[in-house]
């Protein structure tokens, strides 16, 4: 069968002053009708720009060369008017963040009807819009048609987005990280929907993702990109099972395996922190027009943490895991509950002022966003030493300690004199870890510390955390939405849903013999398990 899309020697230049001359170079790739090709790579690999080039959505001024044959024509030579006719009709695209990708105030129905209208096939009775909404599994299409994006959930928005892309039966659907912004259970539903659609229609799909699990779940063929070049492509089984290129092998090795790890019960020390029935609710202030809304963010959460142990808190967005973390480091007050820390008398949550300060240094936190969590106007040594100075360490000693810490997290002490913006995401997260370790804490609370990182960097940071934990006998509370990461690092796992810990126990038990229905659902939702983990 002839390819529906054929890229030949595609190159996309970058403006002068960028870190390399080409975002994409020498890329050749074919997609057959009915085929799902996954374009995989880490951030900056050029996979997204490639998709934009096919659609003709590249920012003006980026030079493109090579050929993009689509249905037998080289679209790069077509006038803009012709390309516009293809977009939305013959080829369609869906994006990562459906909330941002939908018009914020236009009704869903109008956004879809627009596609019909401006391709000369107006949907007069509105029936085609309703059919589309129905076909992507949205409940109550007449209601959804009149709704605006902010009134829908994340999964519903992405379904609406997909409906819009399918409006004119395109032969090529480009999906740019379509599930990255979604919760794992929602992701599983959207991937299932994409599979159904593909089975029902004759449509090729170019799926762009950084998530190997998604690749394993969806791909017929895989194309791996690295720094703008295609390093390997072939049938999914071959590329995932017997990767030929060194980069592909590194990439695959970096993905945490969803496999039970031995419990180290004997190696662990005494209990250092125990939490009993912590509760926290958020309430919006009611007004004349708004009823008061109350959300139970954390409900009766209890757990204990031993020296050298890592307890994973897993759950989807809104499950209350971050609230719990913030309560433990006393960034947030709790409504009820007790936290006891070894050697401290009384409830940690009730300590105030002078008695709290010496305790604070014993519990430190690492944040999710390595870009937002470092003050951009301070040099690295100031950032790392801040806690030391606040606790009365003299500047000379603090400076020495900074050098030691930077070495500990695998950075050159010379980095101390630079500003955070000179570092990559992974390096910044190392700085954040150094800052947290500066006060020699006994408990480290890490809130999604690797979620913003590429998989290879993620592997390095996870290895670093494990190493430090073992070296310093740290007790670690590790918050993550990613079960793979939890499986790799944690001794025990607590599963949270709507503020409640529904299941807690040894990782091997919770993740591989789950008792709670919700844990089972979470596990079933992890993409690529069948192909990748042999589960």
């Amino acid at each position, binding site marked *: 069968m002839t390819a529906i899309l054929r890229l030949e020697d595609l190159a996309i230049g970058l403006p002068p002053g960028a870190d390399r001359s080409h975002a994409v170079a020498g890329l050749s790739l074919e997609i057959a009708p009915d085929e799902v090709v996954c374009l995989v790579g880490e951030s900056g690999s050029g996979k997204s720009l490639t998709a934009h080039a096919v659609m003709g959505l590249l920012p003006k001024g980026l030079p493109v060369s090579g050929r993009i044959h689509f249905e037998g024509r080289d679209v790069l030579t077509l006038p803009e008017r012709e390309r516009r*006719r293809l977009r939305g009709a013959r080829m369609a695209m869906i994006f990562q963040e459906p909330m*941002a*990708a*939908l018009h*914020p105030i236009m009704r869903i129905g109008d956004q879809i009807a627009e596609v019909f209208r401006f391709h000369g096939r107006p949907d007069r009775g509105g029936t085609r819009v309703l059919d589309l909404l129905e076909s992507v599994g949205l409940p109550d299409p007449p209601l959804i048609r009149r709704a605006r994006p902010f009134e829908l959930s994340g999964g519903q928005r992405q379904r609406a987005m997909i409906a819009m892309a399918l409006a004119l039966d395109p032969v090529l659907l480009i999906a740019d990280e379509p599930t990255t912004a979604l919760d794992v259970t929602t992701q599983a539903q959207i991937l299932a929907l994409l599979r159904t659609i593909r089975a029902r229609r004759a449509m090729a799909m170019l799926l762009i993702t950084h998530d190997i699990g998604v690749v394993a779940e969806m791909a017929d063929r895989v194309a791996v990109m690295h720094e703008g070049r295609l390093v390997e492509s072939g049938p999914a089984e071959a590329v995932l099972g017997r990767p030929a290129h060194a980069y592909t092998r590194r990439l695959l090795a970096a993905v945490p395996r969803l496999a039970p790890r031995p419990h180290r019960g004997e190696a662990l020390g005494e209990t250092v922190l125990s939490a009993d029935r912590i509760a926290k609710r958020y309430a*919006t202030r009611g007004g004349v*027009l708004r009823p008061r809304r109350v959300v139970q963010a954390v409900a009766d959460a209890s757990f204990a943490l031993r020296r050298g142990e890592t307890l994973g808190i897993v759950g989807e967005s809104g499950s209350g895991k971050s609230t719990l973390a913030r309560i433990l480091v006393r960034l947030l007050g709790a409504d009820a509950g007790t936290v006891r820390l070894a050697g401290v008398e009384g409830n940690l949550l009730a300590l105030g002022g002078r008695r709290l300060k010496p305790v604070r240094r014993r519990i430190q936190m690492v944040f999710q966003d390595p870009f937002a969590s470092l003050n951009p106007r301070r040099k690295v040594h100031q950032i790392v030493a801040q806690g030391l100075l606040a606790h009365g360490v003299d500047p000379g000693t603090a400076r020495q300690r900074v050098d030691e810490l930077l070495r500990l997290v695998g950075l050159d002490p010379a980095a101390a004199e630079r500003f955070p913006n000179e570092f990559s995401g992974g390096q910044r997260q190392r700085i954040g870890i150094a800052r947290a370790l500066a006060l020699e804490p006994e408990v480290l609370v890490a809130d999604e510390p690797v979620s913003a990182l590429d998989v290879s960097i993620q592997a390095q940071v996870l290895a670093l955390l494990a190493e430090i934990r073992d070296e310093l006998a740290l007790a670690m509370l590790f918050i993550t939405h990613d079960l793979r990461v939890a499986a790799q690092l944690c001794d025990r796992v607590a599963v949270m849903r709507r503020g409640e810990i529904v299941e807690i126990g040894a990782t091997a038990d919770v993740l591989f013999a789950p008792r709670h229905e919700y844990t089972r659902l979470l596990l079933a939702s992890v993409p690529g398990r069948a192909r990748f983990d042999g589960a």
Partner: protein
Amino acid sequence: MRFLTFLLAWAVKAAAIVLTIVVLNFCLIRLAPGDVATVLAGESGAADPEFLARTRAEFGLDKPLAAQLLTYVGNVLTLDLGVSYRTRRPVADMVLERLPATLMLTGAAFVFALLVGPALGVLAAIRARRPADTAITVLALLFYAMPIFWVGLILILVFSVTLGWLPPFGMRSIIPPVGDVARALDVPRHLVLPTLTLGLFYVAIYARLTRGAMLETAGLDFVKTARAKGLPEWRVVGAHVFRCAMLPIITFAGLQAGHLVGGAIVAETVFAWPGIGRLAFDALLQRDYNLLLAVFLASAVAVVLINFATDLLLRIADPRIGAGR
């Protein structure tokens, strides 16, 4: 029912705000040295203490300030704004008499600015960093930076003195022009220069605001979606970029509309326009407190009402606001 509660809650809030403004204005105005008695005495040349005392007693200015405030607030609550110390006429009449002229001027400037400003802003955004954009940006900066009275004087110099196209001041010709058409065009002709003077300042603000909002919105993801749907460029710019970039414009238009009553003092003075602004200016010079307070009150009520209208309009334009998100 929901709307009724909303309306009621708003009315209570609005009344409280206006009352606070009345009290504040009363207090602020008394901070200025001198009163109507000294002004009258100065004009008549008879400044003996007895005259001053008599005048003050007549207007109740000899009572303690607190008592005066209470009397005044009480009167305002019964909608009695008092009489002018100078003309002995009810100040409410004087304000209402001048209101149409001011509304005509500020209204014309408002419409002019709203029509031209955003259009220029959109044009500048579409042609970003090209000559048309540069020209619009420079002109906008110029009119934003130049004092209004200066723009007014230049316009008079060019279009009245040098070219002789338009009348330089007033609202009507002193000698009515001959002919129906000329007579009908008399007021509009007088209106042009003050409208331009007042309007150009706002045109500049709208143009800059729109350009910024357009460029910011154009970089958002949903605009990319609109292009990916194969919409023609005019539709992308109009229904997607502009419709969202419009929200800050509405907010600012609400602010400008709040100045419809009290915001033309300078332009009215430069063009001898018989509006409220000049009334206030004269009242201030003559320490005609009652009149000045009435102008302030009218202006405050206008601001509060228009704020409410803007709120409603924003709710319609951006349904996210009502939903509390």
